[in-house]
């Protein structure tokens, strides 16, 4: 609507990242460059994903309104590359588990925020036309920060050698949930015809549940040995 509105959206989208960075103690570890490196890895992984998608998934030209179930499922399977990327980032950083997770997740999420949210906000939120979608987008970026932290934690747990046998199944399930979350939500939207605010709520609830579960597992794992 105006520059002021853009400022509102910008603050809503970016300040949680800033607060998280400051409060999680990453700033004391001098982790800025490591976050930037994680962001660069994000870029690289996205490029690879795009190339892969463009090569093997030609645009599906079905009828309008028809949901291509299998195609979408296959496409979100490509998001497994994100897990690999996160693992790559974490394996290159030495340090405590929390530190590794936070650096990878912060870098990853911030890179995503800058790459995919900043330009739409700049172009759209500054326009004369008012639309709630920019506020929603900013909320969505907050949710994705939580999502990436949970995802990084799950990946970290999955790659540990000393993971107890009983943990293997829940961690794998959480990993699958993390990867297919976007697909699941899209499916929900398609089946139940959700409005944009409801979608945001569903996303928040789902992400909250996943991250709470991973927090439980993480706490148990860290303090069990």
């Amino acid at each position, binding site marked *: *609507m*105006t520059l*002021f*509105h853009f*400022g*509102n959206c910008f*603050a*809503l989208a970016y*300040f*949680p990242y*800033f*607060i*998280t*960075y*400051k*409060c*999680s103690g990453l*700033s004391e570890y*001098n982790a*800025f*460059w490591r976050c930037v490196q994680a962001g660069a890895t994000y870029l690289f992984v996205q490029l690879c994903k795009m190339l892969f998608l463009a090569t093997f998934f030609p645009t599906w030209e079905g009828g309008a309104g028809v949901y291509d179930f299998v195609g979408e499922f296959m496409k979100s399977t490509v998001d497994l590359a994100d897990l690999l990327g996160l693992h790559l980032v974490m394996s290159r950083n030495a340090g405590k588990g929390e530190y590794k997770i936070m650096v990878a997740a912060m870098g990853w999420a911030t890179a995503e925020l800058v790459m995919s949210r900043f330009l739409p906000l*700049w*172009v*759209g939120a*500054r*326009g*004369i*036309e*008012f*639309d709630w979608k920019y*506020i929603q987008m900013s909320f969505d970026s*907050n949710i994705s920060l939580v999502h990436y932290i949970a995802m990084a934690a799950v990946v970290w747990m999955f790659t540990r050698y000393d993971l*107890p046998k009983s943990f293997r199944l829940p961690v794998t399930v959480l990993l699958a949930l993390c990867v297919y979350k976007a697909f699941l939500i899209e499916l929900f939207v398609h089946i139940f015809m959700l409005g944009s605010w409801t979608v945001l709520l569903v996303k928040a609830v789902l992400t909250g549940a996943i991250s709470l579960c991973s*927090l*439980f597992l993480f*706490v*148990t794992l860290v*303090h*069990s040995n």
Partner: protein
Amino acid sequence: MFEEASEVFDNMFKSSFPLTFIVFIPAVLILVSPLPAEAAHEFTVYRMQQYDLQGQAYGTRNAILNTEARTVEAEVLSRRCVIMRLADFSYDKYQKALRQSAGAVVIILPKNMSAMPQDIVQQFMELEPEMLATETIVPVYFAEEDNELLSIYTQTLTSSSSQGSLSAAEVLLHTATANGFQMVTSGAQSKAISDWAITSLEGRLTGVGGEDLPTIVVVAHYDTFGVAPWLSYGADSNGSGVSMLLELARLFSKLYTYKRTHAAYNLLFFVSGGGKFNYQGTKRWLEDNLDHTDSSLLQDNVAFVLCLDTLGNGDSLYLHVSKPPKEGTPQYSLLKELETVVASQHPEVKFSMVHKKINLAEDMLAWEHERFGIRRLPAFTLSHLPSHRSAQRSSIMDVRSVSPSSRHGAGEPPAGWVHYCKSHQYPKRKHFTFQRVSFPSSSLVMALPEQPYCNIIKRLHKRCSVKVRLRWQNSVDDLHIFASSLKLCLPFSLRVKPAIFDLLLAFCIAAYLGMMYLAIQNFGLLYSVVRRITLPKAKVH
């Protein structure tokens, strides 16, 4: 974070100069780039006429529109775009909007004009000339109703009408939550068109039987007139006249191909342009034929000139004359023939002759035949309207499809008359089929480079194997038209929120961020809770 970042940037700029360009130039470019207006609701608007005739300005003077929408019910209208529906339209409301110096007026017309109650249509028809007669500074637009536009209207109506009787806090809350709409046209200001022409068409059929045959001229003007040029279809005035002329041309071209039915009359068909602007096309045609040429059919032995104007509806028929025809003249016999045909074949039709002297003192001539009357040619107009002042002749409401068969058969008498003179039985033909001639063909629209209308008339005329000549008449001295920005298909209405809403939003966001801050600060609490829950489990392991 920022300190580290600035350090990084410092090092970056010190070490490599080109990097500065790579980072900063795109940033600067993004910052200074202008914002395109994103369109939310797009619809077409049609602007009111704008022309200067004989030094007098008519219609709206402005085309640019960029204001917030209101309905007439709102308290303050100044510099707002007032939208009204045709059903609620009245001249008082319109005047109120103009008096309060509204930024613009948009009148929403219903999609289906024939579904409107007749009294509203009639009332609007009578208002149209009044709206045009005064010079209006603000732009006046017409739009066709659709669902989006209707929802914009209702939302604007609720926000405009409820402001009167609420407390200040309620008004504040209301303005913060209600949707506003910004009406925007990105068209340029209207300019006078310097290079335009009035197009007229002329076709002729030559009779047989010696030199110096008398000539019958059949005339109809094709241009339409209404408050908005692009909406003036002019089905009745003068689509009906033109279609009748075309039908006559078709019939006679057929009759003139056979020797038995070839009459001893030259026939001249003239489809004139600029008719609604004081019959400018006819005036120029007469000047060309009478003053500038040596030999013309019009110069010698014209039996009569028959003008066809507004014949599509009603079951009355009037022959408008400026001088009652004398006995023994061809006009007199036509009048008698008309009377007999009407009486014998169409008894339900009321036929009469209306006599009105040419008033040269008036700005506008009443009927087209007066142009010929001034040049001393025997002429009259056939119409179903009793008076030239009828609002039906210049209205955008004139869109009702003309009935496929004319009830009064006005075309038959002239046809009968010609053949009566040749003592042949004239062709029995009950009905004339009207070609649906409905294009917005106001002179203002016709001045634009792309004009479908003339070509269509020309094609129809050609099919009748009448020799057709197209006449271009260059711009008229005392008529300046402003044909630009008459029809705009532009990003038009944008949803906007008042500044108070932004402030409120900023407040909410600040509260949310504060909560986030507290939550992240006290993440340790959640962590310890989780740990306490999981501890017994850990012991089990």
